[in-house]
């Protein structure tokens, strides 16, 4: 029998631990567990449309817009067929609603489908973007950042089919708003395309001894998921090769638009976007003309560069590439060697990829010529 303990000693007694049972918690323990539940209401419309329906008269246009908005939630449907149908429906509606205000919402809802698993959904999205571009490419320009965001997430996606389709989206984007794309996200897109094509970048490795030439050390390669073990089996399939040719073409187009200052489309309309007609003191044609100045954005400032950045290319992410000259310089400095080495092997292989690779090689030579010309001019 235990001795009877005084009150004071009882305070300091510890409970015995029992085998197989958890330790007893302190007496002031608060239980913070909770149960979460979700409710799906598939038949309810979006709340925002309720505001619009409060108007007395609805024109046909407004009805159309509302019906389109109602369908936006279908973009996240679990069934791929539903998603595809939604996209096709949107594409059909585009001619009528291309200039309306709901286009931004639609684009924001549709862009995530660039990373969609299903191939048909992606194809439908591509066609829809193409259609939108033909009727109103300003919407695309306005949402350029969202486009780049999802495109770059697609470029680094773990599923290789998603990666392979990037080139098509990039080409489509370049067709309609090459100016914005190249100005705002030059490095990002270039690196992304290199990742998609599976080409390693020497410049990715951190420079420790500071020599630009890393020939002596093994560079840390930027591994692209396109050559992950799961997809090694179908690396040489016809589809993969075709996709590779398309991606090389997309890279070719990207470099051409960025470095050679060409106009993309020949408009039947008066060419408002060409540099010739563009007067810098008139009201600007492009949306958000001062976005690149980042006046209201707070940038993370490294404290007097105490920490050196991981790679030299990482430094360049914060550099703005508004003029073609600096874009050319970056391409020639960081990417040229890698491109040339990869392209040589591809040309030797021949086929579709070989042809695209060859045109890319010629393009790079032209860029070099153009850069040396512009240097002489200056």
């Amino acid at each position: 029998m235990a001795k009877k303990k005084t009150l004071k000693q009882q305070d300091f007694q510890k409970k015995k631990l029992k085998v197989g049972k958890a330790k007893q918690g302190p007496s002031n323990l608060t239980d913070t567990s909770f149960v979460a539940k979700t409710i799906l209401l598939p038949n309810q419309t979006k709340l925002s449309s309720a505001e619009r329906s409060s108007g007395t008269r609805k024109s046909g246009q407004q009805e159309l817009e509302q019906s389109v908005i109602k369908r936006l939630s279908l973009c996240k449907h679990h069934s791929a067929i539903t998603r595809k149908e939604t996209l096709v429906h949107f594409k059909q509606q585009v001619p009528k609603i291309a200039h309306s205000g709901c286009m931004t919402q639609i684009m924001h809802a549709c862009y995530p489908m660039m990373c969609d698993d299903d191939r048909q959904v992606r194809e439908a999205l591509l066609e829809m973007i193409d259609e939108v571009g033909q009727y109103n490419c300003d919407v695309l320009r306005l949402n350029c950042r969202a486009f780049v965001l999802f495109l770059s997430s697609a470029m680094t996606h773990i599923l290789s089919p998603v990666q392979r389709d990037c080139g098509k989206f990039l080409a489509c984007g370049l067709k309609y708003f090459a100016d914005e794309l190249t100005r705002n996200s030059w490095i990002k897109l270039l690196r992304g395309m290199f990742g998609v094509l599976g080409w390693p970048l020497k410049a990715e490795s951190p420079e420790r001894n500071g020599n630009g030439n890393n020939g002596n050390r093994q560079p840390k390669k930027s591994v692209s998921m396109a050559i992950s073990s799961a997809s090694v089996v179908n690396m040489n399939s016809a589809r993969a090769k075709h996709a590779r040719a398309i991606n090389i073409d997309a890279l070719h187009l990207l470099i051409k638009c960025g470095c050679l200052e060409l106009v993309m489309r020949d408009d039947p309309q008066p060419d408002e976007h060409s540099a010739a007609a563009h007067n810098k003191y008139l009201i600007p044609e492009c949306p958000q003309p001062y976005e690149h100045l980042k006046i209201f954005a707070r940038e993370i400032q490294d404290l007097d560069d105490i920490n050196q950045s991981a790679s030299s290319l990482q430094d360049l992410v914060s550099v703005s590439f508004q003029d073609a000259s600096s874009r050319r310089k970056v391409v020639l400095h960081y990417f040229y060697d890698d491109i040339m080495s990869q392209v040589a092997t591809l040309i030797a292989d021949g086929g579709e990829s070989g042809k695209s690779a060859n045109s890319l090689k010629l393009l790079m030579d032209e860029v070099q010529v153009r850069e040396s010309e512009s240097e002489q001019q200056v």
Partner: protein
Amino acid sequence: MGADSIPVSKIANLLESTSGYEFQAVLQSLTDAQYVNQQLLKSELFILVNRVLKLLRSGDDYLLWKGCNVILVLCAYNPVILCAHADVFLKELYLKLEKKVEYYSSSVSSEQGRIVLTNLVHTVGYLIDLIRGKPAVTREVLTPKLSAIIPTFIKLSQYEPRLCLPFLKKLLYKNTNTFRPFVNKLYNVLVILLTKDYQSFDVATKRLICDTFAYTHLIKLNPQTKNSSSGHHSVRKDEQYRHGLLLVLSQIRPLITLCGELFDFSADFEMERLVASLPDYQGENFNSVGFFEALDVDMNKPFTLWRISERLDVLNNLIISFCSLATPFAIRVPIGGISKVIQALLNLSVDYLPLKRGLRRDAELLSVIENLSSKMQHEGVKLFQNLAPIYGRCLIPFYPELLGSLELIVPTRKGSTNVDFQRVKKIRPALKDVFELLSHILPAMGRFFDDGSLAPKLVDVALHFTKSMNLTLSLLSGIDQSDKKGGSNKKDKKSNKRLTGSMSDVFSHPEAFTIENSFEFYAFINEFLTTMIRHKSIPSNHHVKITRYAIQNATVLNEQLNYVPASFRDLLRALVLCPGSERCSILPMAVSLLKKTGDELYGVICNPRLPLGVVHSIAPAQLPEYAEDQSLEDNNASSTNESLSLEETTEVPATEQNGGPDATPATSHSQCEIIETHVETQEESIENELSKHRDKIFKRRSSDADIKTEEVSVKVAKVARDYDVLEEIVSEQIDNGAEDTIAERAVFVEQQTERREADGDSDSDFEIPEIVLEEDDGEDEE
């Protein structure tokens, strides 16, 4: 003596007793032109002069002081007194001065004595200046006395260089011959000042000493021993002067060679070549015995290394004086040698020159060497900076090398070309001088020089400087490592507290420890950035950074001060006018920032308008062809095919029909919008349309064409449907400017006139109605 002015005798009586306000009033009244009267000489003015002399001869300091001032005022404003009595005045003043100088230490023991001495010297100096231009007075008064005055001045300048040297300098320059016997003495005095006490003087005095030293070389001291072989060559006037300059210049080479003990010049072939080619005038006819003593530098005592840069500072100032002073004869300056010196100094950079192998690598020595090298580079920049304004154009052939060396002054991180901002802070004064230098030479350089990475680096540095310095940064960043110690005892904590004081402020209020930049500094940086933007094509990244800096700071300052400082206004203007590779200029932002004060430049860009007189001055005879050309040009612009069809050419008149009543010259944008709309073709003849709207077309054309031919060509571009010929011409028009646009238009007009005639439309319908400009102007302004 008129009724207005105070009688002179009364003033004379007053002089001894007045003081303070009364004295000032008396002095003012003495400037009266009434007193310039030769008849007064014998009587009134004689009394006055005697009184003044009495003041001078008295022993009282205050009376002496009054006397000096009265003399100055009288002589300055009264030529009669000057010519008649300057002799006496000068003699008395000189006597007093001599006495004061002889007992120098007692004269300056009190503040009063010092002031009196200063006053005396000034008075003598100014009196000499006043006498100088007048030949008769000079001959009689000055020349005999100068030989007495000058030695006194020289003697005094030993103690009071700041006081005496300006006058000595002037005397050397203007009265060179009179000075000749005394120049050696002055030379010795200056040598002592240069070698012993130079660094204890302020900047102005240092400059004075060097200037006077340079001027002592105006006088030929030692006649050159002429060689029999070269005796027939005439001796140039600047021989002595040049001799002095070369002597100083050749002192620099040993200094840099001394630095070769610290740095390993053999590692850099260029540097070796440069050092070998530094000016060294050891040839014949040259006594290169310098007056500087040998430097005493000991590597075991690293701080003695600073004597090198101290010596270099003196030599630098001497060179600048020699090269920048006005001389009565032309001088031959060895620009090439000086440029080599600048380059050699700039190349002493720790980043690019390795240290010598055998050096002891301890922290003290290394840090002093780094410090020394940045000081030497600064000296190089100073030399460049002072010579560039004077010899700017002559230095242009050397610019590529000089600017290449200038790039080395920006410290870079080890192994890369990125700027090392921590070291940049240390050499802030040097970089400030670099900015000033570049602001000066950039406008003259043009686009021929491609100095690669100098411009972007300096822009980065400049923008870095604009951020306020936070002194506690290093403390804050190290905070993670220091507080990992375990808990300490109470005793330890107390002793720690005593040692460290109250450091909590550093961590809780780091913003209280920042050093803000002054306005002048901002103005400085802005001037540099403005010059950079105007005259260099900088990469877009830096352009964007500058734009952002300008807009943010201008906005902040506008809110705080209610106006935008002038330097920011200039920077904004430069950014608006030179938008670089941006798609659209920051004109709207600049206009809204400067709304209160307004800016004429933006006014002209936003609302282009004709000056009022121009419209009325067009001669009537010129009108018909002009109108015809314009109307044809309208048709040409609207032509869709090379083969004209009448229907299509009606588009433009139709659009202008829409745009005519509404369009004003200013709203080019609305014009463009109107033209974009698709217009149905019309069956009517063009002529009717044109004749209806002739006036309006002509009005608009005339105003547009004069001011903004660009706008017209923009309109042309927008009206033109995709046709290669037109597009090319349009793009050329935009690029080339007004003259070319008219030329192109004329060419096009000629082509089209042929076709128009082929159409068979007669010219009868093209009769231009009389244009009455006044009425139209009134309509136009509505």
